[in-house]
């Protein structure tokens, strides 16, 4: 079975009709992984034994007609804890860490019968936009192997785009699901903050982090998100709101849908080919009956500086727990307890993680708190209000997902600020807590994928599925397959 040539409904039908077994699917998945991994490095850990055991159990029980997800092979970003399967956050700090519990989403998805194939590569502790800060190795983009897959969920995005797994899960703190989805020509959704429990997600910026799903096709993501969502007593920030079946929004028309297009999303720094392709896409939405207004989100240019202070401050606090005492790496030959902390952290964290811990510690330190942390938190309020204002009168905000297409591996590693600016279009949705997705919007002249971003009101993921599936139907970009060429991976 080739995941590049099928969809969830036909896979499911074949499983129900016994034309295919869950064990067949695991074996096909493992051979796709064996074929592509030498070029891609999308995975940190695979667990064939666990996957086969789970698949055998599913096959023995039989697959119910109404359980779309049973027997479907999936992968988790390596900052989502999985019981008994090494979970590293792509850091030396955790390279020997074996969780003793499952994240809530893992529990829910396994209950639904999905098969966990393994753990995907990422930027260390999800800090980055290219998957190059992984302690282990950089991941390559299947559309051009000399280029990055984006990040931080770059392994998950590349694994789905290459057809190594059917669906993959990621976390999004400032765009870490959407930007790699755009760079890999797949669909990726970051739901509303609070929609999905964060229990078992290794924390980065707790008021920004949200878990989401990535698939090649829009309609295939909906049943996964439905299963993942909902209140969890283990995450007090998860919402009590009822969860709709997101599949009901697939295939609805978009007549009369009110779309806001912010001028700031098409300004300086956005590549011309990205602008042109996304503008073309917006025109198609108009042809299908959507009503488009051009609007302003005046605080957009402050999103990057405000985000880096706030998310780094939260990270500096969250990452205090990595001290070499209870789990993970501990430095050798230490003199005393303080030395354990300092040496463990200095040897265990990579440069980007240290940079953010330093920035966050600085922004929270005595004498600087008001000028940096508190100021940024106030600017966050203004950014949030910009969004709330526009979304009072519009159903959706539409623009590009990323300012450019996938860049060359190594091109931006020495310049943190250039790399931070890659997140300029995605950060605001995390600042405001609203749901946002990247939808495949075609390719540039070099054949690199371009993503269109759709942002909706809080808890209105349904409108994103409605518009994104209509857009997918018009274009069927999923028929294009990655070249696996370029570079010398």
């Amino acid at each position, binding site marked *: 079975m080739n995941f590049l040539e099928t969809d969830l409904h036909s896979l499911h039908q074949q499983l129900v009709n016994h034309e295919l077994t869950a064990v067949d699917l695991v074996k096909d998945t493992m051979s796709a992984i064996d074929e592509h991994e030498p070029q891609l490095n999308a995975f940190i850990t695979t667990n064939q034994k666990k996957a086969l055991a789970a698949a055998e159990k599913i096959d023995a029980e039989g697959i119910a007609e109404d359980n779309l997800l049973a027997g479907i092979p999936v992968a988790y970003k390596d900052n989502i804890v999985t019981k008994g399967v090494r979970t590293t956050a792509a850091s030396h700090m955790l390279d020997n*860490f*074996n969780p*003793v*519990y499952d994240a809530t989403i893992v529990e829910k998805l396994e209950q639904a019968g999905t098969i966990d194939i393994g753990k995907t590569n990422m930027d260390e502790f999800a800090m980055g936009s290219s998957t190059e800060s992984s302690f282990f190795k950089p991941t390559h983009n299947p559309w051009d192997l000399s280029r990055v897959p984006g990040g931080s969920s770059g392994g998950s995005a590349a694994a789905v785009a290459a057809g190594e797994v059917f669906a993959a899960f990621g976390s999004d703190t400032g765009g870490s699901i959407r930007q790699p989805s755009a760079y890999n020509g797949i669909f990726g959704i970051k739901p509303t*903050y*609070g929609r999905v429990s964060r229990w078992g997600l290794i924390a980065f910026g707790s*008021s920004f982090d949200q878990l989401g799903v990535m698939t090649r096709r829009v309609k295939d993501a909906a049943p996964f998100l439905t299963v993942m969502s909902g209140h969890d007593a283990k995450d*007090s*920030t998860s*919402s009590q709101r009822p969860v709709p079946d997101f599949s009901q929004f697939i295939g609805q028309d978009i007549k009369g849908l009110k779309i806001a297009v912010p001028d700031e999303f098409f300004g300086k720094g956005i590549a011309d080919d990205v602008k042109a392709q996304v503008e073309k896409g917006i025109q198609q939405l108009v042809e299908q009956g959507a009503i488009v207004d051009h609007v302003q989100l005046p605080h957009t*240019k*402050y999103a*990057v*500086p*405000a985000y*880096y*202070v706030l998310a780094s401050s939260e990270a*500096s606090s969250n990452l*205090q727990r990595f001290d*070499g*005492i*209870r*789990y*993970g*790496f*501990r430095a050798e030959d230490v*003199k*005393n*307890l*303080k*030395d*354990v*902390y*300092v*040496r463990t*952290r*200095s040897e265990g*964290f990579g440069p980007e993680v*240290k*940079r953010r*811990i*330093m*920035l966050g*510690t*600085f922004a929270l*330190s005595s004498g600087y708190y008001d*000028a*940096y942390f*508190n*100021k*940024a*938190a*106030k600017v966050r*309020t*203004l950014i*949030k209000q910009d969004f709330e204002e526009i979304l009072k009168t519009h159903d959706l905000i539409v623009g590009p997902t990323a300012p450019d297409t996938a860049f060359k591996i190594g091109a931006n590693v020495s310049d*943190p600020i250039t790399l*931070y600016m890659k997140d300029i279009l995605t950060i605001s949705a995390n*600042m*405001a807590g609203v749901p946002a997705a990247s939808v495949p919007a075609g390719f540039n002249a070099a054949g690199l994928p371009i993503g269109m971003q759709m942002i909706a009101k809080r808890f209105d993921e349904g409108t994103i599925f409605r518009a994104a599936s209509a857009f997918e139907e018009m274009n069927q970009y999923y028929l294009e397959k990655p070249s696996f060429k370029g570079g010398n991976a």
Partner: protein
Amino acid sequence: MISKDQVAHVAELARLSFTDAELEHFTTQLDQIIAMEHALAEVPTDGVAPTTQLTDTENVFRADVPVTDGPSRDELLQNVPESKDGLIKVPSIIDKGEADA
């Protein structure tokens, strides 16, 4: 302009240590990042309340009863770098000599 001494102080607070060359490099990079942050100063925020969380709730309580379905002590100790008799072993706080006693 952030100084090398300030960066060293922040590193101490964050329990990180750097070589002199790393400290130079970090000072330059942090200085650039903090310069980017100065854009925030131009935004008028008088009377604007800070946003630090996005839930609709204020406090979340639960009954004060023990959680009994969590991992066992043995499971929790599986990832501990060094343990003895079901306890986590750490070096002595002050002096290396006693750590091995």
